């Protein structure tokens, strides 16, 4: 390989080469970081909810009249919902998972209050929740009907049984054996862990405690109430208006709102992540195109300028392959400088992103792929101009340009 001469020739005309190397470096940095962000968003969006999303409907009921009776309303609503043709089951629930609005509280594995609490989302549900949501019980049992409590105003009769998510169990009892243990909250509340579900998520998708959940067999009888309803497969969309009408007919002292398919709630929750991923994919496409076209343009120019020189080499016996190899090697040298600078720049850009925003540290394994990509891009872009150079007839050496 004639690396030496090519390199020395490059040094005589640095500007174009520097510009290409710089472009390659910036492109590498942008592409690597963008792909990294996209991958983390895809991972985030791919987290399973643990529920039967496609057949679930959520709905909100808001009482507004003075004589609104929460407890009667919940009882009649649930009886009517469960009796509907096509409905598998229904549960009252204080907050909709993944929806962005809900409640969280601190829990701990020891009675002493000064120990720092572990935050978990809590859901107030009844014994139909596991069946309705389609949660997978991996240890223990479901709530028993007699454990169910109502929370009418001015009474405090907290339930004593809780079902928690596996992530919560692991957080509080890293060595296992959470089932049957006691969970403490506040100064006086103690619960027995009667069941562990494989997965149940919080309402806030960006929360670090997203997978930590505690479920209580408790129905609040406030004016605000929510239900989740599971339908037979394929009947969800037909049942949404039926559910709205049924609930409206039962009580006109309240407003029925937000009748939503749960898969839409989940989709809505991740909309920003999806948008970010799509925008970054488009940005990668555009920047790669711009860089490739830039390389084509500059290579074409440099070939044109050296037509006579190429002709002379051909006349002196260089084969077409020699010329082709010369330009490919030259380009490879230039992009390699870009790749080296680009790797440094990628890491730098990532450090900035990590420090300024809550982004993760770049996985170093992205870098070799990025480097290969830029090399391939460079060779691909330079191929046509190099081929054109190789086909330069030797006779051109004798002509003036």
């Amino acid at each position, binding site marked *: 390989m004639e690396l030496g001469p090519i390199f020395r020739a490059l040094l005589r005309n640095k500007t174009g080469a520097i510009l290409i190397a710089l472009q390659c470096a910036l492109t590498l940095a942008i592409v690597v970081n963008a792909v990294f962000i996209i991958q983390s968003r895809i991972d985030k969006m791919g987290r399973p909810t643990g529920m039967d999303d496609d057949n679930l409907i959520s709905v909100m009921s808001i009482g507004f009249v003075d004589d609104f009776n929460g407890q009667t309303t919940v009882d009649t609503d649930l009886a009517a919902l469960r009796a509907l043709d096509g409905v598998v089951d229904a549960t009252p629930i204080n907050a909709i998972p993944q929806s962005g609005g809900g409640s969280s509280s601190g829990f701990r594995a020891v009675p002493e209050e000064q120990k720092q609490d572990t935050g978990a989302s809590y859901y107030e549900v009844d014994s139909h929740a596991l069946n309705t949501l389609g949660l997978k019980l991996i240890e223990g049992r479901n709530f028993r009907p007699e454990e169910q409590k109502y929370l009418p105003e001015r009474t405090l009769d907290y339930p004593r049984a809780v079902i928690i998510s596996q992530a919560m169990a692991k957080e509080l009892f890293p060595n296992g054996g959470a089932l049957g243990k006691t969970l403490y909250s506040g100064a006086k509340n103690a619960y027995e862990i009667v069941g562990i579900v494989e997965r149940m998520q919080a309402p806030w998708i960006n929360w670090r405690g997203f997978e930590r959940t505690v479920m209580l067999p408790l129905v609040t009888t406030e004016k605000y109430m929510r239900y989740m309803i599971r339908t037979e497969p394929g009947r969800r969309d037909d049942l949404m208006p039926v559910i709205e009408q049924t609930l409206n007919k039962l009580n006109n002292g309240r407003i029925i709102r937000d009748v939503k398919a749960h898969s839409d709630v989940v989709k809505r929750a991740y909309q920003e992540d999806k948008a970010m991923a799509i925008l970054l994919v488009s940005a990668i496409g555009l920047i790669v195109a711009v860089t490739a076209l*830039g390389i084509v343009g500059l290579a074409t120019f440099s070939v044109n*300028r050296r037509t006579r020189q190429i002709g002379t080499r051909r006349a002196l016996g260089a084969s077409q392959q020699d010329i082709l190899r010369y330009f490919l090697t030259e380009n490879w040298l230039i992009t390699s400088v870009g790749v080296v600078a680009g790797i440094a720049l990628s890491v730098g850009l990532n450090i900035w992103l990590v420090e300024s925003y809550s982004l993760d540290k770049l996985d170093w394994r992205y870098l070799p792929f990025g480097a290969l990509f830029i090399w391939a891009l460079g060779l691909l872009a330079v191929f046509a101009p190099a081929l054109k150079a190789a086909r330069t007839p030797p006779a051109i050496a004798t002509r003036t340009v």
Partner: protein
Amino acid sequence: MFHYYLQLALKSLRRNPILSSLMVLAIAIGIGACMTTLTVYSLMSADPIPQKSEQLFAVRLDSWDPNQPWDEPNEPPPELTYRDAMALMRSDIPSHQAAMYKGAFALQPDDKSVPAYLVMGRISFADFFTLFDVPFQYGSGWDSSADKALSQVVVLGKRANDKLFGGENSVGKTVRLNDKAYKVIGVLDTWDPSPKFYDVNNGAFDDAEDVYLPWGIAVPYQVRTAGNTNGWKPEDIDTYDSFLNSELVWIQFWAQLGGSDKESPAEQKARYQTFIDSYVSEQKKLGRFQRPLNNRLSDVNTFMAEREVVGEDNRVLVGLSFLFLTVCLINMIGLLLAKFLGRAPELALRRALGASQWQVMQLNLVEVALIGVLGGLLGLLFAWFGLIAVRALYGDGYGALTSLNAGLAMQALIIAIAASLLAGLYPAVRVGRLAPAGLLKAQ
């Protein structure tokens, strides 16, 4: 002379259409990407109340968990507990002040066959309207007696008045909310601050509320907040009273500290800071406020920054789009260099016939500027498409944040021309400097 250069530039662009359009395209893509992200960013971070944003302060007290701050690094919660808000309202230091929260109300139309529907309301003090320079179309706000005693009056937002009364003057009419009749005493003119700075915790880009009600109704009617409620310690909250007495934070609090005849804004602010600090110190003796003293008075724009109203994604995208523009410009430098060096013989001839270096450079720069203008215009078009795409991707909430305005369009054009001149400077100078003799000989 400029006209002549322009003609030459046009001719030169046409002589090499592929290279020329590549350059225009590169600029346009870079500008388009930057303008798209910048538009969203600048509309998100716009000053919602420029005439007095420096006088309005969000008041925050650090009543949070002794073991950990509300948010790292040591951020106090964005809202207040009921009893703290009520205690602060007793101060006479701010020229205007108001505690406030968001509530949901069922609006029952007179026509019984029309079902009731939910409207968002704001429960606040009489000063709310003066504090935020809220414009009235008809009538006015309530007087402060309504904040202390039950008084069933309501101020309607413009949208609500248009819907309920067809935009007529509805002062004196009644509206039924949550099963109670309220007398309309005022109707707002169009008012939709964006971002909705006074309550960023419950949707920073939501519309302003439909109904405004005096604080006096809150306790008698037990109007709970429809916004977020946050607490750090488990408390037994079973009644409205226990809710009010809890450590839950849910009330926004704003004070105007713009100075007066007797004191400067800074003095008034310092006096108020002392007041809230000493209030918290008093409370510490009662066993509350176990965190170190960390009470904040942040003006509107500082508060928007602290609450990170502009999403992180948007800031990352702005940063990346400028790197993107840099790549486009480097690309353009390369292409321009190629182009100008290609026409060096022609330029050499001009030099030999008496054109000065400066004139040759001018000639090149006119062409560069022309590319910049074309790229800028095309970039505006790209930005327009980009914003349509952003709106489609992010959904309804982004409607107001994705409109290109004249100011931003001008900015885009200026950036495009400046950027291309910057990119064209080196190639133009370098070609201008070439000695004509050698080039002429080669011909």
